[in-house]
Each structure stands twice: as structure tokens, then as C-alpha cells.
């Protein structure tokens, strides 16, 4: 097993907060939040969403999730100077999603239900839309390993974690990892039914938070063994990953937060660092009552009251399978740029949580940062990143 550190050599992001990492940083610095009404599908409901704008989908046949993801992949490969050069390496593709894995086309299904037959267009689209498989095809690549992770809201984080495992076990030289999801009517209706969506802009960790806003987008990192391309001056590393199940409930987090605590402790152990070494945390922070209470309490318990943390979902909405990928990229941007934005939407501390996220743009100068994800089904995941 190579003992090499795992470098992050490229970042790509597309969300309502910006169609690439530069735009994202610009909007972070302005504190700009661009939520609005749903435009992508018809709905009777009226919850604000974070849609990606100024983005034209040339290939109408492809699922939006795939196209969003490809944008992020291209940006990340460009930064890594790997465009057109992947053929020289054993490449793995590991991407998380929720929507792209489901055959949930209402038009197809209603036609089938009403007439007993339906056009196969949307089925064909679905069968061609395995996220990791599709990206391989777009890149004209026969990847060494190719997997689509469907771990609900921690999919993106777990895809990056799986990529780390592949590299450590020397299955691959380079892994394209992250997550993507489009805004879709099924989760929009589903989260509404679960009574966890807010009619106002979401307020992660705030005392008066009313629920999440959905968003869409994709975040992708390029992982590679640091020695792969000889001498380098890579700035960022992925040093640890932890995931642990709650074994508690399909939709509610374990109230004592011990699942998340287990994931954090694994990730810190893998990175071989202590709690005090962590400079900031990009939290899951969906702005639902339960998630923020459990997550915030765990962060307070594990890292103490001084820990700098934030949720970027106030800028992007909850992008489901994309969230882990986007937030990994945002955590890396924080390390690279030396600052993190305000935790958008937060105003008043929730005394039950006991700690508050950063209220304004904040300097971060430490070496290590963490991104956490908590998912449906009781998945808890954490990634540790560092800068050299």
C-alpha cells in the first residue's frame, strides 16, 4: 500500500452560489444569496429553492444532474492540468447522487398508468444516466474503477471517502470524486411532506430556523497520490475519512449524536491529528430543527465552544447528493484562500446548541479543516483536509 499522502489537485463547483469556484468565492465574499421560486418544474408548493442560473444545457437528452456534474469535473480537471491527459493513468471515478439514480419521471409514469404503455425516452435517458458511468463516457475514458454512491445526503462525502480508499489500496493513480444533484420534483415534494422545508430563506444553526431550502449543483475534487507526477507544489491534501451508521431511524438522526461523533473520531484518527488541530468545520447544517441540534451539539462537545464552523447551505441550499462534493470543495477553498464566508442565514444563537457559527467572513490560518455530512438513513460522514 503506498504510504504517499493524497493530494487534491483540482476543484470544481457549480451551484446557485456560482457556476465555478471563482464565482463562488466572489458571491461568498459578498454574502450573496440567490434563492427564488421553482422554475424547473411545475408545482403547487411555494418553498424557495437555490437553482443554478446562467447555465445552458446544450444536450437536452442528458439528465441535468449529469450536465451539472460534468461542469464541475471539467473545471477540476483543468485546474489539475489533466484535461486530455487522463489516458496516461489508472483513473477512478466515484461520484455521489440521489436523483440521477432514480427512475422518477412523472410524465413517463402517468402515461404508463393511464394507457398501460409509455414512450421510452425518459427510461432510455435514465439507463444512460449512471452518474459515474456517464462522466467516464463524456471523458472518453475506460476508468479502472467507476462507482456511483447513493448514500442520500452524504453521497458526495462518501464518494470522496471511497476514492481515498481506492488510492490508498493502489487501485488507481487518480480519482475524480464528488457529488451532483439537480433540483427535482420528487425530493421537493418529499421534503415538503416530511415537514422539513422552510418557506423563508434557510437559517442554519439559528435559534429560529424553520427548515431547509433545496438547491442543486455539483462539487468535484481531483485526488491523486502526491508523488504521482514527480515534484510538485500541491497545496491541499485529503488526510482522513470517517463514516458511521446511527442504526437508529430512517429519517431522524440519533439524538445523542454518537454516530457523527464516531465518524469524526475515525476521520481524525486517520488524519493522525487531534481535535485542537482542527481550524474550522464546514458543517452539514441543513437548517432543520433536528439536524442542527444534533450536529451543533456534537461539534460543541467534541471541539469546544471556540471552534469556527459554518454551514454553506445558506448560499447553495441543500443540494442532496451534491452537498458533500460542494462542501468538500468549499472546505478546500477556505484552506486555500485563508478565509471562510459568513454562515449565511444565521442571526441568533440557539442556546440548546450552545455554540454559534461564524457570523461574518472569517480568517482561517490553521492547517486542518473538516467537512461533515449527515444523511437520511443515519449515515454520518466526515472528511479531514489539510494545506501544506
Amino acid at each position, binding site marked *: *500500500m503506498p504510504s504517499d499522502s493524497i493530494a487534491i489537485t483540482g476543484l470544481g463547483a457549480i451551484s446557485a452560489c456560482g457556476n465555478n469556484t471563482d464565482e463562488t468565492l466572489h458571491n461568498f465574499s459578498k454574502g450573496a444569496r440567490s434563492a427564488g421560486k421553482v422554475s424547473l418544474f411545475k408545482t403547487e*408548493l411555494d418553498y424557495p429553492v437555490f437553482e443554478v442560473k446562467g447555465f445552458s444545457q446544450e444536450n437536452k437528452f442528458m439528465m441535468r444532474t449529469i450536465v451539472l456534474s460534468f461542469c464541475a469535473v471539467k473545471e477540476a480537471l483543468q485546474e489539475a492540468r489533466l484535461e486530455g491527459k487522463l489516458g496516461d493513468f489508472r483513473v477512478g471515478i466515484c461520484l455521489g447522487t*440521489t436523483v440521477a*439514480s*432514480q*427512475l422518477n419521471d*412523472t410524465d413517463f*409514469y*402517468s402515461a*404508463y*398508468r393511464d394507457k398501460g*404503455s*409509455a414512450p*421510452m425516452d425518459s*427510461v432510455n435517458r435514465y*439507463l444512460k444516466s*449512471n452518474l459515474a*458511468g456517464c462522466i467516464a463516457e463524456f471523458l472518453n475514458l*475506460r476508468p479502472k*474503477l*467507476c*462507482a*456511483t*454512491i*447513493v*448514500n*442520500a445526503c452524504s453521497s458526495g462525502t*462518501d464518494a470522496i471517502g*471511497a476514492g481515498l*480508499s*481506492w488510492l*490508498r*489500496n493502489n*487501485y488507481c493513480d487518480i480519482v475524480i470524486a464528488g457529488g451532483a444533484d439537480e433540483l427535482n*420534483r*420528487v425530493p*421537493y*415534494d*418529499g*421534503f*415538503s*411532506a*416530511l*415537514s422539513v422545508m422552510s418557506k423563508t430563506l434557510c437559517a442554519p444553526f439559528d435559534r429560529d430556523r424553520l427548515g431547509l431550502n433545496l438547491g442543486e449543483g455539483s462539487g468535484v475534487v481531483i485526488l491523486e497520490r502526491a508523488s504521482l507526477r514527480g515534484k510538485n507544489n500541491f497545496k491541499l491534501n485529503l488526510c482522513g475519512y470517517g*463514516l*458511521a*451508521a*446511527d*442504526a*437508529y*431511524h*430512517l*429519517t431522524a438522526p440519533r439524538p445523542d449524536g*454518537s454516530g457523527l461523533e464516531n465518524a469524526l473520531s*475515525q476521520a481524525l484518527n486517520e488524519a493522525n491529528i487531534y481535535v485542537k488541530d482542527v481550524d474550522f468545520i464546514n458543517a452539514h447544517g441543513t437548517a432543520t430543527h433536528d439536524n442542527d441540534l444534533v450536529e451543533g451539539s456534537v461539534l460543541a462537545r467534541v471541539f469546544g465552544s471556540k471552534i469556527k464552523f459554518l454551514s454553506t447551505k445558506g448560499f447553495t441550499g441543500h443540494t442532496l447528493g451534491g452537498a458533500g462534493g460542494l462542501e468538500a470543495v468549499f472546505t478546500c477553498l477556505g484552506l486555500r484562500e485563508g478565509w471562510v464566508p459568513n454562515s449565511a442565514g444565521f442571526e441568533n444563537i440557539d442556546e440548546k446548541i450552545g455554540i454559534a457559527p461564524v457570523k461574518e467572513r472569517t480568517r482561517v490560518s490553521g492547517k486542518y479543516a473538516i467537512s461533515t455530512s449527515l*444523511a*437520511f*438513513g*443515519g*449515515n454520518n460522514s466526515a472528511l479531514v483536509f489539510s494545506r501544506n
Partner: protein
Amino acid sequence: MYIAGMGIIFNRGRGLDILEKALEDGWVNSGSVYGVPEEVLKDKIVLKDARRADDFSKMAILAAHDALADSGLGEKIKPKLGIILATAFGPHATTFRFLDDILNFGDAQVSPTLFSHSVHNAAVSYIASTLQSRGPTLTITQFADSFQQALILADSWLEEKRCEYILVGSVDQVGKVMEYIVSQKLKFAPDGKIRSFNFSKEPECIPGEGSAFFLVTNNQKDKKYCAISGVTSLKEKPDLTILDSDGFAGDESLYREVLGKGTLVSSCAPIFGSMLTLSSFSAVAAALMLKKQKFYASPVRENPHNLNLCVENKAGKINSISCLRYDCNAKSSIINLRN
């Protein structure tokens, strides 16, 4: 990695005894779809905390539970246990029921329970809760390569000691809508029989469903069956090659090309039905054959290409079996098992 336990649920029932009998009996006509009968999914004890679970989750819970029980390792390994589930299509029947709600009642009056069960990882969540296992859990979907990718990740997790034991398995289901889709996209075998050795460019299928689970570990002392010695490459000539040519992944003419001359060949597809995760089921059958040191006759004998088919149930020395699958992109993957 070693197989310490196995669990299986398929058209003919639940458990390794049922599988052994099915291998003995060979092909029996089970209709145009090889579904899992409703009564097979009843278990008041194992499913006692899963009242809301759909059939997709129930199949997975039962097979995973049985794999752990089969190992006899029980409670003491639960703190070191991970779970990786492969599914090609996820709980689509529940997704369609959720779409029914949208169409019948509108966006504002849909069932949150149906929605929460329509996500692919609901089954793993149930397995973890049922077994009270707090280790890492993950669900992978990669169509015909789903189970193989799950095995590779399981191997990685064991190697890096993320966990000491892993329940790695698959689940897929059929349903009326999927049956319709299959009828539009593929050919059904008119007599209910998958002909795995025809190697047709447009093969015939019989959709199946079920779940197959393995408890795997690197601890040799816990080995109950055999080792999974690798995924993806055919290194040496095995004693038997099980072909997953089930009519579900398009052109099967490629199978013929990779088979070495004289290779002993069989297929389990006619017993389990067509599934993109069929390899997991074939691998359970293979592990059973290695354990029993017994060949089972191929369930279908139509052999237009004169392959060296395994044609009788007989004891014999078996050191290694490979399960070979081609996906829709003409990419082969092989699961190698050896004693």
C-alpha cells in the same frame, strides 16, 4: 478476503438449503417473471422493527441477517462490522408508489413514508438498525457492475482496516412497471427459460429479484466457505466458470470469445432469473459448490456452441470458480473464488 457467512433470498425461497435444493433440481418453469413470493418475506422476529419497510428493504434485511447468522459470529463482531449494498435499480416500486401519490393527491399531500423509502440507501439503513451495527454503511449503484464495485470497495475497507468484517451484498426487485420496461427494451424468453449458452446478440431474459449477502473478512480463522481472491481479472483457468449471461445486458456473443478451450462451464441465471446484480447470486452458488466440493449440473443444457457444459450433479475436486459478467458496454468483470 474470506467468506465467513452467506444469506440469499430468491424466487424459490430464502436460505442456503433452498439454494442447494434449487441447484439439485435445476431449472423449473417459474413463469414470465421470477419474483420472490410474498410469504418468503414474512419474518416476525427479524423484521419486528421494520413495519414500514417495503419489499426491497425486506429482501435485503433478511439476506444480510442470514449471512451474519450463518457465520455464527454474531454479537461480538457488530462493533467491527461494515455494510456495503449494491443495487442496479434501487427501490423503484416504492418510487412509483410515491409518483402515484403525486399524481393522485398533488404535490402537497404525498406520503413522507413512501418518499423516505424511495431512496436507494433505505435498505442499508434498515439492515444497520436491525442488526444494531454502527459501523460504516454505503450503497453503490453501477448497473451491471454494482456488485463488483461493492466487492472492490469491501476489499479496500478490509485492507485499510476501516472495519474487520463487512456484509457486502446486493438487492434488486421486479415490479409491474419494471416488467413493462423490460418488455419494451429486451426480449422475454417465451417458455420461461433463459438460455445462457446461446450467446445471442439479442438474448432473451426472465426478470428476477432477490438479495444475496456475504459476510467477508480478512481473518482466515473465520473462513467458512472460500476466499474471494479477486475481482476483474481472469488470472488462471478455474475449475468451473459460471456465466452470468442472463439476457439482461445486451449482446452476449462476447462470452464465447473469452472462454478458453475446454473450460468447464455452467450458469445460474436460469435459476435466479435475470438481474444486473446476478453475479452476487452466482457467487453464492459458487461458494456453496466449493464448500461442498460438488458440481451441480447446468440448469439448462441447450448448447449450440459445444461448450464443455457441467451436465451432472457430482462430487469432484474444485479449487476455484470464476463468475463472469459482461455489462452493457462490452466490459467484462470476473469474480474469482478459490478454496
